[in-house]
């Protein structure tokens, strides 16, 4: 009989449930705000669907006025060593930010194949004269079709292919000096 007189504890604890719910909601919101601040919700961070797959073929014309060759037919199928495919455009401001990093890689002997995305040949040529040319070969994707083949978000965007032409890494947005030291260098060493 005495057992029934004791206040039902779980019921009383239930009174705290709304408060707990509000606290949990607040915590979730705070986590979301934090995530937004350090960019972990940036969809550009979503890994490319092409990682581990052969790089899509690129059949595009060379860019006139740059005196750079286009891509050889099997340039991406079996490059024989790590190679970067860099999508860029002269109208793209982040590409200007990224350019010194491309030049640094080029000086170190890293092969970079350029895809000039939705650009005009004279503008592209002027850009390279002004900022320097890091590319071994350059093609024009004036319709953005090859961009779609690569699952491109926008420019600049960079893909690392290994010697067998398999996509190993994608960087959407401008590569910074930090990107090179923290992400790209170890991969270049691994796939060398």
């Amino acid at each position, binding site marked *: 009989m005495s*057992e029934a007189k004791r206040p039902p504890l779980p019921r009383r604890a239930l009174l705290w449930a709304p408060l707990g719910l509000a606290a949990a909601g607040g915590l979730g919101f705070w986590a979301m705000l934090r995530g937004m601040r350090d960019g972990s919700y940036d969809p550009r961070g979503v890994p490319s*669907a092409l990682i581990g797959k052969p790089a899509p073929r690129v059949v595009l014309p060379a860019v006139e006025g740059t005196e750079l060759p286009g891509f050889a037919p099997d340039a991406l199928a079996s490059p024989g060593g790590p190679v970067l495919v860099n999508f860029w455009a002269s109208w793209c401001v982040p590409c200007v930010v990224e350019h010194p990093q491309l030049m640094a890689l080029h000086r170190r002997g890293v092969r970079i194949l350029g895809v000039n995305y939705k650009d005009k040949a004279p503008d592209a040529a002027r850009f390279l004269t002004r900022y320097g040319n890091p590319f071994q070969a350059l093609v024009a994707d004036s*319709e*953005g079709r090859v*961009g779609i083949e690569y699952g491109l978000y*926008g420019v600049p965007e960079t893909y690392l292919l290994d010697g067998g032409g398999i996509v190993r890494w994608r960087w959407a947005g401008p590569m910074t000096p930090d990107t090179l030291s923290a992400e790209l260098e170890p991969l270049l060493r691994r796939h060398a």
Partner: protein
Amino acid sequence: MRALLLAMVLASLLASGLALAVGRPSEMLPDPAAEARAQEIGRELRCMVCQNQSIEDSEADLARDLRRLVRERVAAGESNDAVREYVHARYGDFVLLRPPFNWVTAPLWAIPILVLAGGALTLVLMRRRTAGRIGPAPLTEAERARLAAALEEDP
């Protein structure tokens, strides 16, 4: 006055709705059935640049390119699934506004089931607890002895 205001709000909503729809005639396929199919596919593909819009709703360059690509493939007679798969293979799961079921998205799909199961479990446990409490507690040794004594006294 209030009615006028309401009418104005409704009209502006309607106008913005119309402005959002990608009804640019030059983009559309001449065959209405094919165009309808292209729109159906496009509404399920995310515009990767604007994220929470489908490529049919977006005016971003990339969305326009993808719309054109979808229409070309539809016009070439590809099935809806084939066109979707073409884009999916290049842009990954994130491009599908309706996420597919695989081991990465499994937790996402499992959440409603888990919540339901949790609720059911709580209900069952609460039931069991109250059911245990309904019957009177069994007699203690002392009570049983007193009862026996009382019954013996009676006749």
